[in-house]
């Protein structure tokens, strides 16, 4: 049982000693997942709001497809991105595979159905009423989208955070397109997975603690924010 105790002791040492490698990994994790979430949100929130309000043919089928994609396995996304970015793939000449950029691309694709689906479903249930009021007050299409985003702000933030949590805690996509290369594409989850299989527990435990901490902070932050409303 000693190795567990020692593992924790070493983990705390790594964290409190500001171990360069550990913090580099944490930074890359936060950077990749935050960037992916932001890129996806900027596109998916206005689009999701618009599609939720709008009546169009095949809306039911669209909803069902979108909701299915929301739970797409991350390894599938990783695989697809890897194929596209690989040497012989359509975007091979950009030489992106095994770089943080590839990881951002993969995570953006991973959270896109999630953010789009959550926004769309929110807008479908609550957007119509806001749109109606907007129209009666003289709002054009663009005004209505902005108004709806503002009115649904709290729920949208919760959705964004949910997506970020999914991104930062997934292993499959970043592992496949990033390759878990030391000092280049190693993130929290891929490191934990690797260290675990090597039996090197201190760093795995240290990063596990950080990952837990991140999700605690995020969750308490949205609860206190959502509670304000």
């Amino acid at each position: 049982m000693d190795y567990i105790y020692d593992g924790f002791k070493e983990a705390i040492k790594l964290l409190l000693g500001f171990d360069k490698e550990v913090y580099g990994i944490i930074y890359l994790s936060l950077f990749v997942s935050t960037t992916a979430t932001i890129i996806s949100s900027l596109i998916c929130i206005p689009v999701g709001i618009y599609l939720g309000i709008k009546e169009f043919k095949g809306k039911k089928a669209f909803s069902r497809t979108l909701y299915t994609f929301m739970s797409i396995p991350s390894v599938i996304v990783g695989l697809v991105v890897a194929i596209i970015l690989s040497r012989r793939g359509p975007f091979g000449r950009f030489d992106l595979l095994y770089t943080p950029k590839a990881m951002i691309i993969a995570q953006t694709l991973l959270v896109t159905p999630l953010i789009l689906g959550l926004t769309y479903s929110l807008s479908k249930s609550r957007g119509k009423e806001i749109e109606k009021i907007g129209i009666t007050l003289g709002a054009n299409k663009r005004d209505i989208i902005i108004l709806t985003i503002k009115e649904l702000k709290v729920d949208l933030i919760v959705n964004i955070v949910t997506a970020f949590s999914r991104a930062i805690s997934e292993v499959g996509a970043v592992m496949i397109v990033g390759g878990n290369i030391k000092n280049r594409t190693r993130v929290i989850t891929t490191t934990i997975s690797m260290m675990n299989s090597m039996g090197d527990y201190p760093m795995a435990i240290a990063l596990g603690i950080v990952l837990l901490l991140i999700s605690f902070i995020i969750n308490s932050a949205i609860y206190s924010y959502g509670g304000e409303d």
Partner: protein
Amino acid sequence: MEISVKNLEKYYSEKQILDIEDLVIEKGKITGLIGPNGSGKSTLLNIIAGLDKDFYGVVKYDGELINKSIYKNMTLVFQKPYLFKKKVSENIGYPLKLRKVDKEEIKIRVGEIIGRFEIEDLKDKKAHLLSGGESQKVNLARALVFDPKLLLLDEPTSNIDPESIKIMEREILRFNEETKGTVLIVTHNIEQSKRLCDNLIYLDEGKVGF
């Protein structure tokens, strides 16, 4: 703004809700729309407001079909108020902001109307936290602030105390007199219709009576 409705038919699934051959809402007048529950009053208002386009027939506004500028010049006050999650003063200023009125003038005009509605004490409150009656006043103030040419009101005073009803009726009359804006108001209150209306339309099972 004069409204003319011709051969209007509205269905929900198979059921016919409205059947109006010819109806004119006179320009510059206050017209009351009365009739029992479920007779189609709100449905008619929604169609005139351009919110419901799923009907047969023609609705014209000063002879024109509905278009962007007509949307900008009319408003509908719903029975159930929906205010934005902003301050009361921002709610009331919103239609002016949409019309690119400059900040200083918005402040002045919002201040004016808040004074007239006697809701100074609510000005800085978050609007979605107001009581039902308070919300209805703010709702009407928000509709009047931009001087629409057509004001559609769906039971605007249904759960309001007598003192506030007086204020709201006074403001509706003032709006009509000062701006010559056309008003169409749904009400179940005959006394109210006597106090406010120049004309009355009676709707029963989707048909216009006398």
